[in-house]
């Protein structure tokens, strides 16, 4: 069962960020807000929201020069990385520590803002563990260097302010190459070269160089985003640690994407950003690395996107399953931390709402209807479930979906007391996947429930007659929790293709 994963991760947040789902979503997007320009409200990443002009700001620690050097190396890695490739640039960024990445998040954020406005001079950071922002104090030399890097990153080296500070004279060949590439993209109407490739770099690091060991949980939050990860193995053994913030950096840079002709960042109008969210969210679900902040941000940017809503429903449905619920019960969390995972019923309710909204937007979304039906059954609405599942089966042309549909329909009919209909549905599922044990176990249980012990025994004998070799057994029920993301690799390939060598500009 190659698609099966014995480990999964669930991202954790400080408890003040997950008091409720909606509040958690909102605050999650406000982690580590960079506020520029002191008291001038900052429009956050195209959201149209304003961050409070917290003043006076507590002074932060002086910024080490190494942090400025790192953002320069980052820009070079962005330029040199070929999306999807395990190259030197990817390995270098993948080798950076969590602390490096947390501070990188700050400097990248600053550089990106300077790309849009090279004259900005005051910056602050609000870590997710703090209510008030902390001022980031750069020396004049550091700020000058950041502006020069921003001139290269934005491809704006010929603009007056960049010319005034003689940015070009301070850039080496790699950065001049970056400047050229970014400038060429601008001329084609896309001023987001570094943003798109930066997001692809960090998602590639997260996807292609997964860390085998997690850092221990830091007792004091560092400036910059902080993510904890809970790893669950076999539903019981759990490991808690600090996770790298590659996804946070990728999301942050994409928040600044400004479509052609737009006056302000508007990632919600950008096709690549949408593609990035759906592909990466699907990949996360495919490998069971659940991160609800990822989809929460996707929903903020694309509130009516059926795929984002569908994947959101799948995520909450997965959270309701025993393999995650049991791990969460087993977890020993540090004081002040809690998980953004509700009870099974609470998760199913959220899943139902997401699937329903996906279907409102796209009524012919067969897989959303199938899962909506299953979730309705889980909530005890068996008649609604059966109706939804019948409709999904009638529309499905994929054997896998028809199998799931019949399996779940059997369960719904069983609960409705429709024994014959349940048996028929289970038998149809069994016929589609003769090596699958679940419909046979279901048939046995159905017979047993109605006092038909010979029938129950006959069905269980069919299970025993299956091969004992796992390689010869195929029950899609075992991979239902990742089946929605079976196209994740194809989505990633499609996402990367325009950025790979030889792609049309």
């Amino acid at each position, binding site marked *: 069962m190659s698609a099966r994963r014995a480990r999964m991760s669930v991202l954790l947040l400080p408890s003040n960020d997950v008091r409720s789902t909606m509040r958690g979503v909102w605050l999650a997007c406000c982690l580590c807000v960079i506020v520029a320009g002191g008291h001038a409200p900052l429009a956050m990443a195209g959201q149209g929201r304003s961050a409070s002009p917290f003043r006076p700001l507590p002074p932060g620690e002086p910024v080490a020069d190494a942090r400025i050097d790192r953002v320069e190396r980052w820009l070079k890695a962005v330029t040199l990385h070929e999306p999807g490739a395990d190259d030197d640039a990817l390995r270098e960024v993948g080798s950076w520590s969590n602390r490096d990445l947390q501070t990188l998040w700050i400097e990248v954020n600053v550089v990106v803002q300077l790309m849009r406005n090279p004259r900005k001079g005051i910056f602050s950071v609000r870590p997710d563990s703090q209510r008030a922002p902390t001022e980031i104090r750069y020396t004049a030399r550091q700020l000058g260097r950041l502006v020069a890097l921003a001139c290269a990153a934005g491809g704006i080296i010929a603009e007056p302010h960049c010319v005034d500070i003689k940015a070009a004279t301070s850039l080496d060949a790699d950065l001049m190459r970056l400047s050229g590439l970014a400038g060429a993209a601008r001329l084609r109407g896309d001023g987001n070269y570094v943003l798109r490739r930066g997001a692809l770099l960090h998602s590639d690091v997260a996807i292609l160089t997964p860390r085998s060991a997690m850092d221990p949980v830091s007792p004091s939050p560092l400036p910059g985003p902080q993510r904890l990860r809970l790893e669950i193995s076999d*539903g*019981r053994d759990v490991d808690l640690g600090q996770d790298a913030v590659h996804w946070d950096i990728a999301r942050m840079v994409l928040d600044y994407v400004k479509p052609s002709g737009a006056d302000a960042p508007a990632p919600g109008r950008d096709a690549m950003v949408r593609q990035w969210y759906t592909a990466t969210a699907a990949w996360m679900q495919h490998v069971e690395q659940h991160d609800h902040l990822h989809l929460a941000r996707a929903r903020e940017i694309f509130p009516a996107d059926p795929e984002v809503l569908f994947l959101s429903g799948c995520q909450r449905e997965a959270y309701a399953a025993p*393999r995650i619920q049991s791990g969460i019960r087993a977890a020993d969390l540090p004081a002040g931390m809690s998980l953004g995972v509700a009870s099974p019923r609470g998760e199913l309710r959220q899943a139902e709402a997401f699937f329903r909204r996906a279907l409102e937007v796209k009524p012919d979304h067969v897989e959303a209807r199938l899962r909506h039906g299953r979730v309705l059954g889980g909530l005890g609405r068996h008649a609604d479930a059966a109706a939804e599942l019948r409709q999904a089966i009638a529309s499905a042309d994929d054997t896998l979906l028809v199998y799931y549909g019949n399996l779940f329909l059997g369960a719904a009919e069983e609960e409705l007391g429709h024994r014959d209909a349940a048996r028929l549905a289970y038998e149809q599922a069994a016929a589609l996947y003769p090596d699958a044990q679940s419909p046979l176990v*279901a048939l046995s*249980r159905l017979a047993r429930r109605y006092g038909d012990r*010979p029938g129950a025994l006959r069905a269980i004998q069919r299970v*025993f007659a299956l091969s*004992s070799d*796992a390689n010869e057994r195929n029950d899609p029920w*075992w991979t239902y929790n990742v089946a929605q993301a079976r196209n994740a690799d194809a989505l990633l390939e499609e996402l990367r293709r325009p950025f790979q060598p030889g792609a049309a500009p």
Partner: protein
Amino acid sequence: MTRTRRKQRTQKTQKTQRMWCLCVSVAAFFSVSFVPLVSLSRVPIVSLSRVPIVSLSQSQPSFSSKVEAVRVDVLVTERDGGSAILGLGPSDFEVLDNGVPQQVDLVSFEQIPLNVILVLDMSDSVAGERLDHLRGAGAALLGALKKGDQAALVTFSHLVVLGAGLTGDVEPVATAIDTVSGSGDTALVDGTYAGMMIGESDAGRALLIVFSDGVDTSSWLSPDAVLDAAKRSDVVVYGVTARSRLKPEFLHDLTSFTGGRLFEIEKTANLRATFLGILDEFRHRYLVSYTPRGVAKDGWHRLDVRVRNRRVTVKARPGYLAQTP
């Protein structure tokens, strides 16, 4: 109890032993033809449509075409977890079915052969040393079986596999235990259900020993579905699990409903002693039978089993679910 009286009782028990093997389990009311899961079942596969109830009093047999016997596995120990009390007879037991006193027809003890079904977790978490301990414990258990006993093996990861069907020859079961390996997820609920079905496939007295060191992550059946099946069955389930922060709710409920016991162990190094202890305890249980009278046929029957005039602890299933097909 005198030695002579005990001997008489033993002889009487042996006499009825074979009939017991034919006596259908009656927690649920079936018109049954047993489906053999094994070819070596010592019990002939017969079509048992309305099985006659075997009475302890052979001179006045009681037959019923509508109501069948209920049998209850009962463990009687000294108070405060003391040793098992042996030598009790039908007149020592008082059985209330939904509060209605019942006439105890037959009490058997020890001499009835056992059907021991091992249901063992073979998921990822069992690989390595735990698996060695599990193999050792399984082998020790098989070695402790007596002539006439049968054993079977079901293993589960996400796959449910029949390692060996019920057989009086422990060799294939031992071989199956030796060859298992641990990998995959945990279908504890499905695996347990499959084991229960093996127990129900034979009229013998079934002991299901379920070992799992994980929680269910991949079963199709819900715990409630299997608990429902357990309420209709007279298979007794003993559970063994590794102690952790997670409460083994399913095994706890299942062992409670079947009158068995749950062992939460610190280390699997002690598994051998645990398995042997379970077998020993089960051998000291009584099999009490009665034909329900004065109670509704269908639905949940609350059972209350007591021992007259003795200050003892009685452990039995709390009830059963009866159903007309």
